């Protein structure tokens, strides 16, 4: 079984418009059980050094980040994000910008692409005409609290699928867009397959978003990291969920009901948890969702995994 670690990849401090000091953010993150976080203040990295140092003291992995907050869209840039000045980003040069940043080592994620933009939140609705998605690693399919109940996230997932259909490879991530310690709460996480080098795992697509459930997927009897390639042809999938946090399911009334297979590689399919599914995969992508009930609402997506990419070499 592959091990996955809960991260929060989108956090603000009082260095931009958040309310938390780096210390408050680190303590609150430990309390919530995150293995790590990314500090992604709007257009500044001035909180990063302090947050990284505080994280080291208490065993919280802190990823260096920034949220390029432009008039036309928001992008989080993790790792080495110094090659780009956010003020130079515009509607004309976005492809050149992401190419430059990615080549310099930044791991880029499209943030909350379908949230309400101006006058509610300038740039929160993505208008930047990105075409070179090979330089983007992550895609926020879920944003903010109660992410599996928001219309803007359903529209984000539609866009995600249309980009995957075109052959792009993008990791599914969640961004709480955490600004306040107390008023904000969230039951969702980005689970990442590498706790020491999470940026690398995001780049390779080894992630899933989830309302607290852990996921275990076996393909032909073997654990296979998300984002991996599969040969075209018949494969057997065995998908089970694990209660990652003690009490989590009872606290939020989470009841997983079944599995859905989606993507361009096979016809959409629904199955019971743990059932062995034989799927004839053609070239394209295939991704897994867990659906079920929570907090009294039924038929919600409880987890959504980054795709497997099926290659036909015949």
């Amino acid at each position, binding site marked *: 079984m592959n091990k996955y670690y809960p991260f929060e990849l989108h956090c603000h401090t*009082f*260095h*931009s*418009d958040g309310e938390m000091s780096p210390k408050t953010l680190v303590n609150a993150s430990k309390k919530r059980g995150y293995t790590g976080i990314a500090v992604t*203040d*709007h*257009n*500044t*990295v*001035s909180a990063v050094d302090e947050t990284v140092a505080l994280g080291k003291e208490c065993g919280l992995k802190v990823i260096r980040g920034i949220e390029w*907050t432009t*008039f*036309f869209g928001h992008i989080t840039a993790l790792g080495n994000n110094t090659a780009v*000045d*956010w*003020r130079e980003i515009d509607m004309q040069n976005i492809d050149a910008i992401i190419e430059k940043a990615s080549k310099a080592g930044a791991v880029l994620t499209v943030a909350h692409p*379908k*949230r*309400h*933009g*101006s*006058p*509610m939140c*300038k*740039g929160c*609705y993505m208008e930047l005409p990105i075409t070179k998605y090979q330089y983007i690693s992550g895609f926020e399919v879920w944003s903010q609290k109660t992410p599996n109940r928001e*219309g*803007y996230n359903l529209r984000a997932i539609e866009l995600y699928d249309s980009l995957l259909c075109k052959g792009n490879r993008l990791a599914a991530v969640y961004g709480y867009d955490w600004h306040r310690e107390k008023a904000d709460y969230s039951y969702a996480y980005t689970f990442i397959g590498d706790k020491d080098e999470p940026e690398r795992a995001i780049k390779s697509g080894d992630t899933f978003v989830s309302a607290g459930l852990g996921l275990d997927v076996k393909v032909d009897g073997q654990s296979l990291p998300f984002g991996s390639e599969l040969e075209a042809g018949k494969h057997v999938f065995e998908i089970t969920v694990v209660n990652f946090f003690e009490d989590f399911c009872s606290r939020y009334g989470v009841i997983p009901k079944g599995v859905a297979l989606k993507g361009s590689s096979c016809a959409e399919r629904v199955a019971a948890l743990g059932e062995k599914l034989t799927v004839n995969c053609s070239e394209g992508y295939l991704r897994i969702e867990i659906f079920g009930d929570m907090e009294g609402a039924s038929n919600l997506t409880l987890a959504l995994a980054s795709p497997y990419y099926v290659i036909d070499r015949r």
Partner: protein
Amino acid sequence: MIVLHEHRRLTESESCRHIYIPFEAPCGGNALTVKFSFQPATLEDRQQSLEIIRRGMEIYEPGIRRNDAELEEFLPLKNMLTLSIDSPDGFIGAAHRHSVNQLHKISAQKSSRGFVPCAVTKGRWIITVSPFHFVTPYVDFDLEVSIE
């Protein structure tokens, strides 16, 4: 010593554009202080505000009709100008927040929230004002930079 004092009225045509205001620091110093304020803070006209919100919502949630009470949750509409600072060596940070009265201090030991510590050296500095939210016909800002 005051090294820059700028008062400007921005009109809507300047929204979504960065306004670069360079200035020369004739000497180095222990600290650079930036006083920045703007007004008005909000759009007072309720009907006009709801109309702007409704127009936005038609883009973000196509096909969903919302009544005034639902749109009111987004009131009041606020102006927001983000201020960035460049030292002679480049970008040192930004204050991206909804505050109409701001005071920022930059020094080699410690800088205000949003800016990394930076020695105050002689040379060409730049203040950038970026109008993020521009909901009134104009916004007036006042900017004063001093070195001590």
